[in-house]
């Protein structure tokens, strides 16, 4: 979010009375703490002394799981972070009626009246610009801002494309002094790059006919977290908690999940750190007996693979692959690799 420009009627050189500030709203983070026993406390005491309050993330309370690292108090996002396809980009926009500081001991500048402040936002994606509705919904007439006042809005946008995105925010308002008034407007542009987080590779192979003479295939998928960071995963890079990997099949097909993880008791959590991958396997079979005919297009379509995950702090992400399938002309050698 670097580049920003001002658009407005060129004749007006006077600085704007309204400023725009933004903060990307990723999930707030749990604050870490490193509890310490108080210095110079008698080492012969019978029980360990309570931790030094200054070493806790908030004033001592029954809810603090000291000496645990994580504590329930939350901190706002410290930085923009990375933006990934499949996640929701959320951002707060604040239009502020800034009071200009007096110039070098001069008389305080006359404060203007600011009326009808409106914020509009648009996301320019690599393919097309999209207008984003703002939350909370306010009146369309605009809001009057007293000096020091702020109009806050929140935008949410589902990121679906890789590449350069630009958040275009336009602020318009009516500025009035005791003698005159005029409508003013400016725009700010915030650029960021949206990257792919999960790479999915799939492969299908024929399994021969089932008991009912139905055709069967094995669908394997390899899901890799390409979310930056070092190889060791020591703090660097994105960590992905896989919430769901499911196959949405076409009509007339049923699938069997051969994996040991996912929801439910005794199943294991799948956590992918940067650079790590996970393999999943499904058996896909037709519901009825095979009539011996091949598909005319030479391709049997199974459906799509749906992947749902959570990022650190719980931010949701989801992806669907393209339509997966297999070439059926030579089923035994079937194999299609598709990359999302």
């Amino acid at each position, binding site marked *: 979010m670097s580049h920003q420009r001002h658009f407005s009627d060129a004749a007006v050189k006077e600085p704007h009375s309204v400023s725009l500030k933004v903060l990307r709203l990723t999930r707030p983070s749990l604050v870490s703490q490193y509890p310490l026993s108080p210095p*110079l406390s008698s080492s012969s005491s019978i029980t360990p002394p309570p931790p030094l309050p200054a070493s806790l993330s908030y004033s001592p309370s029954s809810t603090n*799981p000291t000496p*645990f690292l*994580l504590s329930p108090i939350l901190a706002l996002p410290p930085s923009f972070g990375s933006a990934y396809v499949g996640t929701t980009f959320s951002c707060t926009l604040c239009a502020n009626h800034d009071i200009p500081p007096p110039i070098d001991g001069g008389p305080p500048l006359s404060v203007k009246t600011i009326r009808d402040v409106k914020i509009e936002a648009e996301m320019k994606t690599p393919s097309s610009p999209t207008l984003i509705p703002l939350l909370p919904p306010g009146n369309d007439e605009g809001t009057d801002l007293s000096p020091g006042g702020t109009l806050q809005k*929140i935008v949410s946008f589902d990121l679906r494309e890789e590449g350069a995105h630009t958040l275009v925010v336009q602020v318009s308002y009516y500025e009035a002094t005791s003698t005159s008034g005029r409508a003013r407007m400016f725009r700010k542009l915030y650029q960021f790059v949206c990257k792919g987080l999960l790479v999915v590779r799939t492969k299908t192979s024929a399994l021969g006919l089932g008991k009912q003479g139905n055709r069967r295939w094995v669908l394997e998928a390899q899901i890799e977290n390409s979310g930056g960071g070092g190889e060791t995963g020591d703090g660097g890079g994105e960590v992905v908690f896989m919430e769901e990997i499911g196959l949405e099949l076409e009509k007339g097909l049923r699938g069997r999940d051969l994996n040991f993880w996912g929801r439910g008791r005794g199943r294991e959590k799948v956590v992918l750190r940067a650079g790590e991958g996970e393999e999943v396997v499904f058996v896909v079979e037709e519901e009825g007996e095979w009539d011996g005919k091949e598909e005319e297009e030479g391709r049997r379509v199974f459906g799509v693979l749906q992947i749902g995950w959570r990022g*650190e*702090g719980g931010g949701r992400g989801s992806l669907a692959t393209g339509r997966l399938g297999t070439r059926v002309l030579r089923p035994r050698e079937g194999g299609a690799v598709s990359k999302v």
Partner: protein
Amino acid sequence: MDRTQPEDGKGHKRTRSAVKATRPRSSTKGPLDAADPLAPPPATSQPSTTIPPPSSSSTTTTTPAPTPPSPNPQLIPQPTPRMHPSHTPRAASPLPRSPALSPTPGTPRRPPPGSTAPLRPKDFSFLLRPEIFHPLTPLNIPPAFRNSTKQPPPETPLPELLEKGHFRAAAISAVQTLTGTGRTPQQPDPSDHVRIFDLLYTRWACLTLINSTDLAAQEVKALGDLNSAFYLSEDPTSGKTHHLVPWGLRVLNVRLQAIGFGDLRRAVMSYYELAREARVKLGEAMGEHDNSSRELWRERLEDLGVRVAGTLVEMGDVKGAGEHLRGLKVGDGGKMEMMRALLWLRLGDVDAARGCVMNGEGRGVTRGEKVVLALCDMADGEYEEAVAKWRELEEEEEGDEMVMVNLAVCLLYVGRMQEGRALLEGMVDAGRSSHTLLFNLTTMYELCTERARSLKVRLSEKVAAMEETNDGWEKTNADFKL
């Protein structure tokens, strides 16, 4: 590389990588490793290590050229020249060998013949050298604090500094005492390990409190390997050994050394080593029916277990931390549930976090459970519902800092930042000043105006005018994003 290796002309040589040598060694204790009160500090087998001869002022040393302190303070103090585990056969009996190995005969490492050797105190003067300690810059302190009349005079006694939360001043004062500079009390005797370690702990604990953990991590390398027999002492009557370094410092040392060497896995191992010792002591206490000692060691053992989980989280292995917690029997009053829930929240597994506190019931009952459920709503992006939960918690118990801060954060996410800001400002007015509170409030200031700096400076003045408590009075520029 190894300029501390003077054993030229000897029949055997050791190849010691300096880096390896200063790392905390994993413990491989055997029966021969027991501390030998007769023995001089093992370092004496290596004349080049920087443990100076005891009270060199009063002893005539014939060392031709006393080893100058290494220019690299990180590599010097090796009170523990015991070797890598693979050399155990030699390492097991390094002490009797030392005179023979010594290339500088006549160095008064051993007490004069006839003196009662077992009582010769250990010499910790290598921990009193000024070059170990870094100067602390006041430049990262906002002027409101730097120029405050609340700044303590230099002669303020250390306990008072700590009591009033002057942690930077305390860190400086501790070093002035250790090194015998400044107007602070007399430098401790090199054998007075109790006082030396108390001061060192004060120094390093305070550094971690003033955002200077990295400095502490460098300085703590001076201790070398705390597992060394050098740091053990044997009670001549009972024959039991005990560690000369207080427990708190040993625990802090684990984290600091791991940071200093950039290897957190080390910390997990070192905590396990401490835990092994705690188990032994716990067993002894149970054998002797010493209830208070048993309680003490049990609590220490639990504390270590929880710290291991935290280190795993820092290493990015949240799942591993969860597995580890499962094996712990810790705490009461829902502490374990809170820890597990926070872990899963960090990971993003919100269902599992809810599962920690719901146990099939509809809603959380205890305060901790309600807190977890509110956090879960936020992780799900259900901020409106979370606001309602935080409000309810706030009404139940007024003045809970965590609940109020979280409510304020949540308000920002639903577009009601002004309310959140007012809430946080009210907390500052009521005398709160935790790092998280200040960070969140200054972040809101940055959103509220193009000219946030003046708001931040005003906030720093307000906090500087607060009463000094052991919550920590002085803040850094980073606290106000200045």
